[in-house]
């Protein structure tokens, strides 16, 4: 089954996040205190090489190996809660010194504080989903609400 290959992908991405310093708590505090821009460089370099790579793949109409269809580079839609959501997520990012991906990687490194962070992310995701669910029930239809 194709989905199991993502176990390996997760291992690779997790390993690289660690090597990039994204699982080192101090880098988060130092970034937002403007003392060490390690993680800013990581995002800038990743997005930079990503922009070039995707521009080329778009031009070549690249097909993915597993789906044999042209890769969809349309990205996530805009939504009214984008800005408040991003600010809340950012505050949690600074408070917990982790993001959804790196908290899981930290756990594998033996950083046990990540257990609390991961639990919190699950709770936050659940609360948001249950709130959306009420709206879903009110509207009675709309399977597309679960998007992104």
């Amino acid at each position, binding site marked *: 089954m194709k989905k199991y290959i993502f176990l390996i992908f997760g291992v690779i991405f997790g390993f690289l996040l660690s090597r990039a310093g994204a699982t080192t708590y101090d880098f988060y505090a130092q970034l937002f205190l403007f003392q060490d821009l390690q993680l*800013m460089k990581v995002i800038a370099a990743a997005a930079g090489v990503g922009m070039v790579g995707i521009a080329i793949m778009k031009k070549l109409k690249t097909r993915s190996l597993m789906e044999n269809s042209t890769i969809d580079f349309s990205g996530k839609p805009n939504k009214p809660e984008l800005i408040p959501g991003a600010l809340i997520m950012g505050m949690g990012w600074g408070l917990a010194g982790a993001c959804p991906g790196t908290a899981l990687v930290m756990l594998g490194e033996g950083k046990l504080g990540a257990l609390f962070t991961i639990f919190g992310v699950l709770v936050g995701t659940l609360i948001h989903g249950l709130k959306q669910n009420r709206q879903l029930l009110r509207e009675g239809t709309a399977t*597309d609400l679960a998007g992104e």
Partner: protein
Amino acid sequence: MTEVIVWSGWAGGLAVGIYMLFQFIVSGKALGVSTGYGNFCSYVTKARYFHVGDYVDPNNWRLWFLIGLPLGGLLAALTSPGEIVASFSVGELYDSVFPAALWAKGLVLTVGGIMIGYGARMAGGCPSGHSIAGMSMLNPPSFIASVGFFAGGIIMVQVLFRVFG
């Protein structure tokens, strides 16, 4: 706390960006983590939201990707020179502003986690999905989200270290 090898920011970011492109080419899927937390919610709630759209079948690629992440961390720790030390330390800087009692520290981290989870769902993504994959696709909402992430982080950390530092 386990000391892991850290590459320079540019080299680390380059590797992460190349990984993101590799995942696109192989699977056609955009990098992203936060949506996958909802897959785990699907197993504990019957709420319809967690069983439609992305969550029709929670046993999908996102679930396995998230399971792989801690294993990647373990691999990174095993290939670093020092011993693996299981610890509740959150690093020198955060330890200096967080309460020392484990329950209180855990509470702070849990609140941080709730904000991360709730905010990421509101924004439709996290730094992986918006800042790395989204900005690479030149998707305007992802640029806005990334600015918001940084603004939120700066506000929180500046206040945290001014008040408790």
